[in-house]
């Protein structure tokens, strides 16, 4: 079985006034290619810390994090940025679209950074991604003129800009009404059906309807892992 994510015995601590705060406590987790994993848990359980480790935004205190073929902890900052631009698509709760670029320009920006797609093809690809997420007619508008759901779709299109094998989303429906949230989750499900690996951090139960696997964290540890693909010995 091919694993896109292999987290081995990872410890992540933060220094606080009282000493060391353990955010991730000796956690191990493997995610196979093509899985749709929902990482759930209460606030403070370590969900976002884990996502940040997977995205290379943060580094583990100890243990190893291998994502999309790279040992995230050992990459330099510039190598990490290059790797992230090519291999990982990130979706945030508050969209993080640049307000002075149009929607299509926001989608083109990661292509400018990664330089995987030739300059002449970038706009066409950005427009087709916007069509894919259902907001092709909003391409030349400014993000502030879009609804929350449309902005999240634009953010998902931006995450797909360089066709990464892995999509990481941190509470992608947390700022959306339930109808729009369902539509966004359906979009994630469609992207997963195309073979893309998706990891969504959420504390909303709705994601169960679309995720193939549900990992529950508490105090930085996995306390439940439902729907994991198991390797069958031959």
């Amino acid at each position: 079985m091919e694993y896109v994510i292999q987290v081995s015995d990872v410890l992540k601590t933060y220094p606080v006034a009282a000493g060391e705060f353990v955010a991730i406590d000796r956690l191990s987790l493997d995610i196979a290619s093509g899985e749709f994993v929902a990482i759930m848990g209460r606030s403070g359980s370590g969900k976002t810390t884990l996502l940040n480790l997977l995205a290379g935004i943060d580094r583990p205190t100890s243990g190893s994090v291998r994502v999309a073929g790279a040992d995230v902890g050992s990459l330099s900052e510039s190598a990490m940025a290059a790797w992230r631009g090519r291999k990982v698509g990130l979706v945030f709760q508050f969209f993080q679209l640049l307000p002075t670029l149009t929607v299509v320009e926001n989608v083109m920006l990661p292509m400018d950074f990664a330089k995987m797609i030739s300059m002449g093809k970038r706009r066409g690809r950005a427009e087709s991604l916007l069509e894919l997420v259902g907001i092709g007619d909003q391409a030349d508008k400014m993000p502030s003129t879009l609804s929350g759901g449309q902005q999240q779709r634009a953010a998902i299109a931006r995450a797909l800009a360089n066709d990464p094998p892995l999509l990481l989303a941190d509470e992608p429906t947390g700022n959306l009404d339930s109808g729009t949230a369902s539509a966004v989750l359906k979009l994630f499900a469609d992207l997963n059906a195309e073979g893309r690996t998706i990891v969504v951090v959420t504390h909303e139960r709705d994601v169960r309807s679309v995720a193939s696997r549900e990992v529950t964290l508490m105090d930085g540890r996995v306390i439940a892992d439902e729907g994991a693909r198991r390797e069958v010995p031959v």
Partner: protein
Amino acid sequence: MTSLLTVKLGRDLRASWSRLLLMAIANAVSLMVFGGVLLVWGATARETRNAYLSTDPASATILFDKPIDAEKLRAVAAEARQRPGVIEAAGRTQFNSEVEVNGSRRFIPLQVFVAAPDDPMRVANFRIEPGSWPPAPGELLIGRDSLGLLGVAVGDTVTVETPSGDSVPLRVAGTVYDPSLSPSPQEQTGRGYLSTTSLAAPGRPPSLDQLKIQVFDGGRSQRNCSRARRCWG
């Protein structure tokens, strides 16, 4: 920078031009104020140094164990001037005194500087406004910035107590600007200048206990250099 980032930069600048303008103005004002402070600081340091050097400050002051006759000290100073490297020497004394102005006691002490009436004032000098050294017998010159501190004016009578215990009434004849001293209000001390003739008493010739000498400073100061008549280079 990618073309999209250039576009973004242009739009960001357009979107927040008023804020940027205010920032530029604030920076300009800050730089002007900072530059002004630097300018004043530099000018003050330069002028303070020049003013101090204009007093021909003594390189050293030799304090005697006890006062000696002013005539004797004049001979000692003349002898000192013959020593290698010494370009000027003069006998002086100074004392602190309680002070009365027109019979009214002041609670600010007076630091009194005393020189012989024929002292050429070529070392540790000061500027008399108006007039020149020496003040007449029975007269006192007061530091310019001591007037307000002591509540005294030119023409008033100031009574000082000499080291020998005599109370001597002196008329304020003029003022002195002495940039070698810190400001009187800062020190909370008045400054007075008089000649030995004002302290002389019958049967007790004037005496001094300081020998101020000035040595050649290697040409660092122009006045010192010209007086030494042998500058480097």
